[in-house]
């Protein structure tokens, strides 16, 4: 029996033996290939990951049981939904020892290298309210609902055979704000109707962004709007769109590469060669603001070449 066939058979048996939902984890202490037991039915997806700890990403609804075969001290699972959805998380069948240092914490957003998405200035809740701690006293938190299409859980399980089940459910969000794109290509229209808030659309790829429509400052009534003053940049305006680029997920720490504070009906495009490219709509709440844009992944030859002996950290923009 060939090695590939044996691997497939073993994984098929593993998938049959899981009692409920998908029992899954990715645990890496050295480089190895992990074949997703679910996709082995349709296609073989072999992904090599190299990370100390355990890590997972969930994009589907369902029940997911996490079982520790050995102590897992730093685990996280990112959860992502469609842009027009929010995520509901519920813990059940939890068998951990909080007093021994085990924990399960759900976070409203993503945290990566100490940076949060959405940033504190774009999220409506203070930071401590974005965490739901299962082990907290007096009332342990076992349910959480995200404010945008991303959420995550952090957990530490030190005793073997400790486990918990996470129910992931997606709910429709009619006015999405603060979106993380699942793909490096696509299009989106962001609308902020009479709300004083800032919304970001984040693409964790270097992309070319084309703004196809921008509608700012539609008054509530037919009253004439006052003459807009000319500011240096749009930061003095109450409503504007800015394009950001950076190498983290926190939009407040990214570099503004362009901003627009006048409505436009033509095309405006920009290439952002950063790990993260963001379209951010700032709204005063006085108007209905809307921005439509398309984005595509930059090809390798379109990526800016790093200049030799350069001290610049900033990812290039064209």
């Amino acid at each position, binding site marked *: 029996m060939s090695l590939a066939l044996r691997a497939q058979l073993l994984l098929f048996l593993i998938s049959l033996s899981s009692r409920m939902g998908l029992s899954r984890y990715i645990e890496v202490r050295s480089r190895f290939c992990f074949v997703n037991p679910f996709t082995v039915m349709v296609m073989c997806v072999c992904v090599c990951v190299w990370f100390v700890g355990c890590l997972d990403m969930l994009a589907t609804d369902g029940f997911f049981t996490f079982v520790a075969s050995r102590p897992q001290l730093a685990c996280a699972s990112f959860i992502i939904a469609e842009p027009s959805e929010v995520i509901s998380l519920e813990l059940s069948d939890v068998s951990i020892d909080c007093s021994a240092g085990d924990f399960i*914490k759900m976070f409203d957003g993503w945290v990566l290298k100490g940076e949060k998405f959405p940033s504190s200035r774009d999220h409506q809740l203070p930071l401590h309210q974005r965490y739901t701690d299962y082990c907290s006293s007096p009332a342990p938190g076992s349910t959480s609902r995200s404010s945008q299409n991303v959420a995550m859980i952090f957990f530490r399980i030190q005793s073997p055979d400790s486990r918990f089940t996470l129910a992931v459910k997606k709910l429709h969000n009619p006015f999405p704000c603060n979106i993380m794109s699942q793909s490096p290509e696509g299009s989106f229209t962001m609308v902020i109707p009479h709300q004083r808030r800032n919304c970001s659309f984040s693409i964790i790829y270097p992309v070319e962004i084309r703004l196809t429509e921008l509608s700012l400052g539609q008054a509530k009534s037919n009253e004439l709007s006052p003459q807009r003053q000319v500011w240096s940049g749009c930061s003095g305006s109450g409503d504007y769109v800015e394009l950001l680029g950076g190498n983290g997920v926190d939009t407040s720490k990214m570099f503004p590469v362009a901003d627009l504070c006048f409505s436009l009906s033509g095309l405006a495009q920009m290439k952002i060669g950063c790990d993260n490219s963001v379209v951010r709509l700032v709204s005063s709440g006085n108007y209905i603001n809307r921005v439509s844009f398309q984005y595509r992944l930059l090809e390798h030859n379109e990526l800016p070449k790093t200049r030799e002996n350069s001290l610049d950290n900033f990812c290039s923009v064209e």
Partner: protein
Amino acid sequence: MKLNFSLWLVALLGVLPPPSAHCGPTVAPAGPRLPRPLLLRLGEEFSLRLGGGGLSSPVAAPDLFISSSSSSSGVNQALLQLTQRLLQVEQQQQEEEVVEEEKGKRSEEPPISLDLTFHLLREVLQMARAEQMAQQADSNRRMMDSFGK
């Protein structure tokens, strides 16, 4: 006059408990605690005026304590102001301790984060999307099978 005033202050401070030596918030201070800079300033003033001595203790030379037979109104006013200041300081310290305790509770939770590169994040995101598409394909296939029957 100033020397008498200083001596009265030293006497008053001598009956107060010394400031706490350990770090961290105390639950219930036994008495009003003077902030250290005030003590040092008094000690400095005392030692400077006497032309010597260190800053180790504000009550550096007990033999220099002179009891005054009658206290002037100015000294009384100064003592009253000192008492009021002591009470204010105590209140401020208690408020700061409460704030520090709250901050401590919030900061007990370590800032949880993953040091994950964007490259790895994209890899797991692609895996998750592939899984989602496979699940959708399977669901569509079942739907078509049921329609075909």
